[in-house]
Each structure stands twice: as C-alpha cells, then as structure tokens.
C-alpha cells in the first residue's frame, strides 16, 4: 500500500494566521509553519497534497508554500462545519485512494534520527495494510484536547495497537472506564497525534455521520471504521506540538530548535534566561 496523497486541514476559522507564522527550521532558515508541515509530508514520500482552507484563503496560503516540489492543491470548505466536514471536502482530490490526513495546526517533531513522523506512520501502515492513526501517550490533564483511543496491543508488537474504541476529547473519568490501554504509564492515554492513514471509504462514513445539523466530527466516522475493519493505532517516535494551544507556537519552536544542530546555542540562551528569572 503506497500512499502518495495527503490532505492537510487548515480551515479552522479564526486561526488562519497560524500556518503562516514564521519559524526557524532545523537548518536555521526561516520558514512558515505551513511549509514545515508540508516538508514533513513531502520528505515522507507524499507526492500530492490537498490543503483544505476557509473560503478566500487559498491565495494567501499558496504564496507561503511555493517551491516545495510537490503538487499542492487548495480545497475550500464553504462553511465551518467541523473537522470531519473539512476532511470530506477532499473526496474528489483523493480520488478513491488511501491517503494521509494531517491536521494543520500541529507541528510534528521526530525523535527517530532516520525517519520523520509521517514516514514512520506511512511505513507502518504500508506493512500492515490497514487504516492507521498515529498516537502519542498523553497525560490525563490534556486528553480533553484530543481524540483518544482505547485498544489492545497488536501481537505484542511495540507501539502497535488494535483500536477498539475512540472518544473525542474525553474526560479522565470516561477515559478510565473506556480507554485504558495496557503498557502505558499511570494516568496516560493514547491520543491522536494529528496524522492518520485512511481509506477513501472514510468519506462515505463522514457523509453517514452528517445528520444535517451541527458540526461533523472525524472521530465518530473513525469509530465506525474501527467497527467495520481493522484499524490500528501506532505510537510514533516523536512528539506533536499543538500550535493553537497557549504558548503552543513558542514550545513548538523551542522543540524544533532543540532538535536541530543549534541545540547547544539554544540551551545556553535558555540557561541564561533561567538564571535571570
């Protein structure tokens, strides 16, 4: 299963400035957050990326991603009807193939020296030939921000779980009852990383989840998918940084810098800052 297509969602109203924020990449060059996100996908072997944006945003974004070496299309989401609705706008772009879905307000930083986060997921999904969500063990105080899965270890393979159940932004109360996963530290759950390998059938499930009222979520469709076919969760060697969170951009930049060749220099600055504080 070779995945060549990716969908990146950046249609959240009121947050259009985030993908355009300038950050310093691992080499020390300024890049927009969006360009960093696209670089992640392209470096993982993605050839086509469809970016879902709010109406009228395509020209601004197009300028920010020029010269990246992949085919990039922009897809508009006419109304703000939720993350699931944003995804299903890419149905035609995906054109019946399995695809990689990435959320646009996250930055992924791999701790695997050889593979970035997207590549880790794509390779694992290709090996098992199943739909797969990248996940990260997350402390219970933060699970209210993410989709969270419950499942069992798959054939005792490290980091691979068969998904039994998933809940969008659960409380620890619900998570403890429904989403306990063996092998994790106490008070930690497997939350979505922001990267999924999905079959094109997800679009039908998204349509089915739309009752015509209110927002359409991705998680109910994924839950349905997990009931109908094998759906795996894969624990990525890396961390996701939510740019939307308070200090999210700052933390993402710090993480990026500390994973770059400028690590020593940044550390030195940090120590000075701490000493003054």
């Amino acid at each position, binding site marked *: 299963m070779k995945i060549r297509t990716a969908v990146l969602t950046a249609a959240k109203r009121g947050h259009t400035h985030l993908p355009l924020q300038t950050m310093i990449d691992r080499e020390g060059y300024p890049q927009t957050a969006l360009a960093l996100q696209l670089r992640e996908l392209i470096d993982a072997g993605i050839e086509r990326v469809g970016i879902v944006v709010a109406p009228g945003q395509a020209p601004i974004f197009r300028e920010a991603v020029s010269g990246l070496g992949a085919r990039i299309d922009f897809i508009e989401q006419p109304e703000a009807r939720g993350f699931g609705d944003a995804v299903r706008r890419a149905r035609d772009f995906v054109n019946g193939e399995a695809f990689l879905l990435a959320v646009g307000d996250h930055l992924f930083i791999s701790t695997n020296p050889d593979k970035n986060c997207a590549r880790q997921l794509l390779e694992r999904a290709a090996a098992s030939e199943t739909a797969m969500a990248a996940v990260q063990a997350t402390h*219970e*105080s933060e699970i*209210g921000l993410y989709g969270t899965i419950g499942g069992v270890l798959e054939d005792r393979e490290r980091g691979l779980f068969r998904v039994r159940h998933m809940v969008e932004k659960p409380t620890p*109360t619900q998570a403890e009852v429904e989403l306990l996963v063996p092998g994790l530290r106490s008070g930690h759950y497997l939350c979505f990383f922001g990267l999924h390998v999905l079959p094109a059938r997800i679009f039908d499930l998204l349509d089915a989840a739309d009752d015509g009222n209110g927002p359409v979520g991705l998680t109910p469709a994924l839950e349905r998918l997990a009931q109908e076919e094998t759906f795996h969760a894969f624990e990525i060697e890396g961390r996701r940084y939510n740019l939307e969170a308070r200090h999210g951009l700052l933390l993402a930049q710090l993480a990026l810098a500390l994973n770059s060749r400028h690590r020593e220099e940044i550390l030195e600055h940090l120590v000075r800052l701490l000493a003054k504080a």
Partner: protein
Amino acid sequence: MAVSTSPPHPFVELIVSTCPEVRDRSLFVLCQDLADDAILAGCEALEGFWQDTPNLYERVRALTFLSALHRYVLPARGLTERFGRIPAEAHGALMRRRFREAIRAFREAEGDARRNDTLASGLSRSYARQGLQYLADQVRQSVRSVPGNQWMFRMGHADDYPLRLRPELRPADGAETPVLRESTAVRMDLSHSSWSDIFFLAMDRPEFARVLNVSINLALHGSGERPKPPVEAYFRLIDRPVIRLVSVDLGAETEVRSLGQLFDFGADYLGLLKAAVIASGLVPPGLEGAPIGLEQVLERFLGPGWGFELISNVNNIPKGSRLAVSTNLLASLIAVCMRVSGQAPLLEGPLDEPSRRLVAARAILGEWLGGSGGGWQDSGGVWPGIKLIEGCTAQEGDPEWGVSRGRLLPRHTVLDRSDVPATARQALEKSLVLVHGGMAQNVGPILEMVTEKYLLRAEAEWQARRASLAATSDILEALRAGDIRRLGALTTAHFFGPLQTIIPWANNAFTARLVESVREALGEAFWGFWMLGGMSGGGMGFIVEPSAREQSKDIIARLLLQTKERYQESLPFAMDPVIYDFSINENGSTADWVSSGGLPSAYYRLRLPGIVRKPAAQMRRDEADDLRAIARRFGQQALPQAADLSILTALLPEGDAGSKDDGGSVSLARLLEENGFDPAQHETIRGRLRAGKIGLAQNRLPPTTLIEDVSDADLRPPMSEAAAKRLGEAALAEGSVGVVTLAAGAGSRWTQGAGVVKALHPFAEFAGRHRNFLEVHLGKSRRRARAAGVRIPHFITVSHLTGEPIRRWLDRGDVIADESVCPVISRGCSIGLRFVPTERDLRFAWEEMPQEELDEQAQKMRASGRRALLEWARAAGEASDYRDNLPGQCLHPVGHWYEVPNMLLNGTLHRILQEQPSLRTLLIHNIDTLGADVDPVFLGYHLGGGSAATFEVISRRVEDHGGGLARVDGRVRLVEGLALPTEADEFKLRFYNTLSTWLDIDAYLDSLGLGRGSLGDEGAVRTAVREAAARMPTYLTIKDVKKRWGRGQEDVFPVMQFERLWGDISALPDFPVRFLQVSRWRGQQLKDPAQLDSWLRDGSHAYVESLADFA
C-alpha cells in the same frame, strides 16, 4: 524434607473449605462437639491463620471467630474464671485503632489471656475491631479503584487539572446565567434484603445480595402538592472565584475560598455539598492538602475570575426516612457536577447507564469522605422505576479480583413494563401507604451486628438469611403478577420472621404496637406491613386494600400520632410522624434548565436579605439575576403566593415574623423553681469555673495520691454462702428490705443525649413483649416479694425530666401493681442549670481524657466538628447558662449522691418507714444494672458484715471504664474514673463499681446526724443534707445534649454540669463499708444499645428474665 500435611483445625476448615455445607456451618454448633482443649487449640490455629492468610475475607472471618470465641464460648465454658487488669499498652492501642498491637499486648500480658476474663474481653474487642477495619479499608480501596474514580486520587496540582466547564453553562451576552437542575428520586427497598446490601456482605457473598428497589417521587400527604422528585441539585456559574454552597432545606450557605475550607466537612451544615464537589471530581480528592489555592483550580475549570454555585434542596422529607434521602441527594449533586464538567455526556434528561454507575460509585466515595456510609442499593434513586439490584461476582480485570468474591458495585436491572406491567405498578401505588414514624435512631450498631452474625453463620440466623433470599423472589413474583395482597403478606411475614430472627432490634415497641393497632383498625383492609431500611420506627409502609387507601391514610395518621404520644418520652423521636403521597419515578435522575426565577422559594428567602443590603454597584451578576427573578415572580402574579410572600418576610428583623414566643424561657424558669434550683450555688460554681478553680482537670485527686489495687482479702465475704442465704431470707421475710432504682438521669449514652427517659425505654422483649427497664426492676422485686410473702417497697428516684413520664406510665397500669411490690416515686429536690462549656474544659475532654479514635475520615469529621463547637462555646459565652434548647435539655440532675437524701427531703422515706417500720435495708441500684436483685445471699453478706453500706463490684472487662475499687492512700474505697490522678491509674484496678449498694438505713441516717424520729423535722433534714453535701466532692462533667431543629435534624452540643456521686460515700471517714464481688450477669450495666445483641446472646437476657415475675 517432609512437609506437614496434617489437616487444618475444624475452625480453620470452616473458613477454607470449598464445600458449602462445611463453610456455612455455625461456629457455635461446631463448638458443641469439641472439648475445651480442642477449642483452645482452635483459637491458636485461628491466630496463626488470620495472620498468614492472604485472603481478606478469610482473615476477617477468622478474626470474627476469635472474637466470638473469646466473648461467648470461652466464658460460657467456664474457661475464663480468672480475671485481672487491662494492660495499659493494650488499652492505648485499642483507643488509637492499632488493633494488631492491641491483640499482641493482650496476648503478651501476664498469664494465659484465653483463660482470663478481663484479657479475653479485650482480645474479643480487638479481634472484632481489626476485622471490621479490614473490611472498611477494603471498601475504601475498592471505591478508589473503581475505574472512573482513580484519576481523582492521582491529581496533586492545578496544572494537572483536566476538567472544563461545558460551554452551555456560560451566560450569553446580556442574558442571565443558565441554571442546570438535577432532580432525583429517592429509593424504597421493596424486598428488604436482610441487610445484604451492606458492602461487606455483598462483596463476600454476591449471590446473597439481591434487592428489589423502587425509585419514587414524594409529597407530604395533605400538603396539596403532587408527588415529585424529592431531591434537587442546582448548578450555575458565578462571577467570582469561589465555590458558593447553599443547602436550601437546612438554611445554610457559605462561600468556600480555599481548599482547606472545602475539605473541612464538619465545620458547618454543608458537608454533603462539599463531599459532592470533591467526589464529583470538580475539586478532586487528590488535591487535599495541595499547596495551591482554590482559585487556581477554578481558573483551570472555569477560566479566570469565575466560580460556581451549588445548591441542594430536599422537598419536605425529614431525616431518617429510611428512603436514602441523603445518599440520593449526594448522588444528585454529583450528577449535576459531572454533567457540567462533561464527565456525564448528557447535559439534559436522564443519565445514560455508564454515568449512573459512575454517579453511584462517586456517591459511595462521597459518603466515605463525609465519614458516613450507606448500602450499595442506596443510590437507587438515580435509576428509573423498579429494578432488581444484585451483587456481581468479581471477574479478572476488576479491582476486586483476587481480593473479594464480589464487586463493589452491584448490577442494576431495570424491570420494564413487559416484566412488571403498568397494572402491577398502579396496583402497588394504589395499595401502599408510606409513612415516617418519626423515630430517629442510629442504625450503625445494627449493621455491625448483621455483619458479625453473617460471618459466624449462627444456625437460626443463617436459615433466616436463606429464607429472606427466597422471600425476595416471592415478592418479585407477586409484584410481577400485580398481586399486592400477597406482596403485603410476604413483606409482613418477612419482617416478623427472618428479619427479626437475624436482628430482633429491627423491631421495637413503637412499631409492634403500631402494626397491631393498624391491623386491628383496618381489619380486612390491612394487607401488610413493610419495614424500610435498617430498622423500623422511621420509614415504613402499610399495604392496604386499594379502595380503602385514602381512608386508611387518615386512620394510620391518627394511630401513628397516638402511638408516638404513648412512647415519646421513652423512645427517641425526632419529629411527629408523617404520611407521604408517592408515585413511582420512571426517569431516575434527570436534568433540565431552570427558567429564570425557578430556584426554590426558600433559596430566595435565604439570599434576599444579603442582596438588598448591597449597593447596586456592588451587586454581583448572580445576585442581580436573583433579584430580577424575584421581581418577575411577583410581577407575574395578581396575588402573590404564600411561598413568595415568605421571601419578603425574610427581610424583617428576627422576632417581627411573629413566629417566636417566649414559652420556652417561661417554662425553664418554672422548672428551675419547682425542682430546687439553687441560684447561689449556681453562681458560685460559675465563678469558680471561670476562674479555673474547678473544671475537668480539677476533678482529679492530687497527683501525690497513692492508687493501688485492692487485695482479694478486701472482698472476702463475712460468712459462708449458706449462712448468708439463711440470714438474708430471714431478713426478707421480716419485710426489712426495700429497693431503690435510680431513674433520675436521662441516660445520655443510651440515646446520645436525646433527652428521653431511659427507665421507660422498652428495650427488649421479656415474657412475650417489649418491656422497659423499670418494668424489669419491678418484676424482680415482685418475684422476691412473692417468694418471701412480704411487701417490698420499690423506690423510684426521679427528676424534672423523668418524674412526670414515670408517674404517667405507672398510672397507665401497664405494670401490674399488687400487694407484693409497691412502687414509690421519690421526687428530685435538687436541680442544676447546664453551662456552656469553657474552651479549657472542652480541650481537656478532647485532648487529655481517654477516648477512642475513629476511622480516618470520621476522625477528620470529628476534628472539624470540634473546631466548630469551640467556636460555638466562645461565641455563646464560656460558662454562661445553657438555655438555647428545650427547657428539659437545659437542666440536669445533680448526680446520684442526691437521690437518697432526696428521699429524706421529700418525705418519701419517712412515710414508708411509718407504713413499714420493719424496713431496715435498701438495695440501691442504677437503672441500667438489670441483674441487681434482692438476692438473699448478698443481703445476708451485707447484714452479716455489719457495715453501713455494702457495695457490689465486678471483675473488670475492657468495656468497663470510669474508675472502680481501689486502695486510695491506704483506704479501700470506690473511686470515679474522672477523679483518678492519671489515666494509667485505672489500669491498676481489677474491680469495677456496679453502683449497686446495700444500705443500712439507720446507719446512714446516723451518719447524717439524723434518726427515724427526726425524719419528720423538715428543717433538721434540710440542714443535715446540706452539711453532708458540703463534705462530698463536686465533679464537673461534660455531657452531650441533642438540639432538634428543622425536619428531623439534630445537633449534639457538649454542655457542662456538676455532679456529686454516690460512690464517694465509701470514702467518708466515719462510715463503715464493705465490698463484695458479684457475677457479671448481676453487676453489668447496659449503657449503650450496641451492647444489646451480645447481652442477648451471652445469657444475660435469660438471666434477667429468670429473676423477674411479670405475671
């Protein structure tokens, strides 16, 4: 190496056997076939077993066996003839709940602990407490381990806080803040489960735990209201970072500003709401003691600057209804908190099933936090309609797996209309009359008795338990068939059969008489009786023929009131009985949005005075919302309703409302005057108390006093038993003996200060019906008098509190008056007015005097409550008069030393001596010394010894506190526990004072400077008594008194009083006294209802019954 394969001792086999026939055999039956040595060997085997076995329930059963063996079996076999001292170390460990240490200390005490009655009593108690502690710890552990609860205990900092308020709770621009209301049913237990809903039982034997539980709406009959969910909880956001808690029904409110304040449960009446905030996870229990501010937590939950208000409301349901009101209120509060924080996914309407289970688990947690506890079916009101609740076997993966056979939480199967058709539900509604009998009782001791009996598998009780389980199935079948008449017959048979076989104390004289009279009054229309909850007297049901139901309600209401009036001075009633209208609640706990002004009227009544006194500019958003709501309520009505008008009345100064009268103070003044109150003495005591010259610390003898145990020679009878008997019988036949029953006190420990007359408490059945203490004492005198063919005058000393009720009881003719026994009332001639205690004395009582620590949370509650009581004492005025209660509760008898002098002052003794000049000796005894009796042997010893008074003492057991017989600076005398120089002195003493005294009337009069001839000289008597009183030590004591308020609510206040005590006459220099050791059955005192069951089982009841003649 060969491994020993010898079979376990039969006692251990009883515990470990996988064969039900063996495992469920009675320990007592097994003992019948074993020799003494085998039983002692079995004790050793159990000792090793409980310490080694990893299985919790095996451990607990072994401990319960050991406790029963030491309490019942070894003494009954005469193996514990020796007695001795309580080791101080062991006693200290018991007090501090270090039960393992106590067991070790008792076992390591000098001699063989299993053959020493004193030590065996200590061991028995220690084993029992250790067992119960294991069970409590296990329930606590299970509550914490329930999935969904665990995270709350991990949280230690605001940064880890995970909950967020649902956006629907936030006010839209310019709009009022939305209020979410949770309405919850209460539950009634249709089957009664033989208490199988006690967690311990259900977790050990889940297949036995099975109840039919119905959610109901209620209204007070006659109120004109339709039945509705009786408990409500309201939640709304407020614009300041505090937690505002309001209990509408208790009229209490507070703003919580710190974590410390929130975790301080006993500080006010809002403990239940605090427990709900914590157990719901809004402020998780893991944050207790965290070094952060409440504001930080609220900021994470609600955003900067926001707080919330939580309101509880109980619609006219009194406390003690046995309908699990407080558990369901707690569940209601938790449910609304879980909804607003997204822990329960549905914001409106009924809860989903997973949420119900979580709410139930959290309610158990909340009850534990609040230091209370209910059964696992109690939160049944959260579920809809009729449901079967059953224990569940623990499965692999459950937190209970490998620890207990059952899970903590039961399974709820809601019975739908295909199972129990609508016609059956309607039939139940049309036949059942629900009542609250008005009694307030502590059901805790009953639950401990049930647990012990369950673990021992005593034969009759075990059969009853099996019958009870079958009865649940029969009741369910009758309900399914809509055969309510049969259902009534089943619940009646269940109550009078299995339930009372297991716990006789489930019934009481009030209930027995009530059922009898209702049955008689309704005739064919009476279909059955049914007890709710742990014991009868509170919530109860009558099942009647449907067409007669409305008429029956009036009849039952009348009979309830009549029966209550008959017993209100002898049994603790918190309120007048009430009748409920009810309907089955088919929704369970449900939430809805409250429209503007939709909070209860009583809430606005509570709030309005505070709001209107504020300048408009300082008014908060919620306060402005409330004011607008009140204005709208009035604006919408042409004629405001009474409930709304009462909101305005709240603005009037106290006293203007026309509800207060001064009847209480008038009656207090009259009582003081009539009962010999001495204002000069009162002021002297107050002055000395305030100056610190007297007080609890000053009760003690000087530290240099030498306290030693007496020798056996000090108790040696003066003659042989046969000679004594001859002498005693001759004296009896001469008509020279009278009896004095001390009945002036209220028996504070008996009803925790409820102020009823202990002497009239019909505490147990004798000769086929409930009889009170006094009736038993008169019965004993009657038997002796008839046997001797003489008349025995039986003096009953009374006080302001007990006099009239006892007189009325005697007049009613319940007790047979004949020639043989002649009850003579001796009126109290001295009275005291209680004081508000000083902080110094309260601290001394709580910090310096020995007292048993409570379980972890209960101890915290106690500490918190005590802080509040210190505040109360300071605010009310230390050593000021205690007048803020019913008059009878403000007065106190001034100690039993006065009782015999009162017989002189009021002329009673003079009169009887004139009628019966042969009278020479009095047997004086306490109301609760049930075995005291005019036994010719002891009378003979007294007469043969030639002393002025002979005191009866018993060998000490662990429960005997409060001094005893001692050699004090070389003189053998009785000494009160509060007078001993140090706490440790009591542990030197082997003998405990029963207070039973044989008194030579002439010698006593002589000691006062009086004689038979001068008894008619009132002035001489008065002077003699005053001078004698001045020679007696005065003790300051602290007693608990209850103050009742609201609907069945009770507060307990510690108040100070002074006392002079009878035992101190043994220390008078010119008054020769002797001491006799008597058997425990003869000398023991029944102080606490928790003693009743063991008193019944160890032969004491049969012994007392054999002494009395009731016919």
